[in-house]
């Protein structure tokens, strides 16, 4: 079979290179304005979360801890004891 009729197409100067390397990579560099706008959207979203304030459950929790109590967790992640707080688990 002639090389030019092979499924991979004609063999020319790029012969021997993989197909991936022949496809130009899409270079998507963002201009400054777009970066700023994305940053603003991120900040707006984050501020919306920040404005939710502090739910009472956290005040109660910290008051309990201050009083020397170690309340059980009712959520989905039970307290597993005093592990190294900064460990990469």
């Amino acid at each position, binding site marked *: 079979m002639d090389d030019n009729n092979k499924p991979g197409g004609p063999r020319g100067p790029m012969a021997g290179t993989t197909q991936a390397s022949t496809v130009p990579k899409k270079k*998507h*560099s*963002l*201009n400054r*304005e*777009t*970066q700023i*706008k*994305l*940053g603003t*959207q*991120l*900040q*707006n*979203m*984050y501020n*919306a*979360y*920040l*404005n*939710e*304030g*502090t*739910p009472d*459950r*956290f*005040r109660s*929790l*910290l*008051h309990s*801890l*201050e009083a*020397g109590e*170690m309340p059980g*967790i009712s*959520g*989905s*992640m039970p*307290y597993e*004891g*005093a*592990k*190294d*707080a*900064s*460990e*990469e*688990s």
Partner: protein
Amino acid sequence: MMAPNPSVSEAMLRAVPSLRAFAISLCGNVDRADDLVQETLLRAWANLNSFEPGTNMSAWLFTILRNLFRSEYRKRRREVPDGEGTYAETLKSQPEQASRVEFEEFRTALAKLPSDQREALVLVGASGFSYEEAAGICGCAVGTIKSRVNRARTRLAELMSIESVDDFGPDRELKAVLSSGSGNG
């Protein structure tokens, strides 16, 4: 364990809104985020002896929260991410209709980022940490954080089909209709 100084619990309480904001940004679900914050506070309290007074308590708490999230994320990896909901409807202060669409679009795109890119972007772009602090929180090199932030921005723009600043805002759909209409004569 000796009872911690009340100022410690006050400092923790002050950090709660930003911890929650970070947690919601990471997992996109308020209930899970609140569980994450609660677990973070408990872990921190139980390990106060590992906190160095005079250092940044907020960064220490973010580190704990981030590690807990990564640990939980690995367990829940097969679950469908909760990024498609209309979170804006649950907010106390409702955004305007147009910004609500923009808000949801951005939130959905953010939820689709790989978690390492999402956390880097939020830490640096919203939580106000420096690249160095974010690297400390994530336990990686500063260059890695910079690279993740860049990739996150680029991916966000791709997900939101943004090529220029004109593509932002509530008019984008109208502009798209107008531009396709003008092509038809």
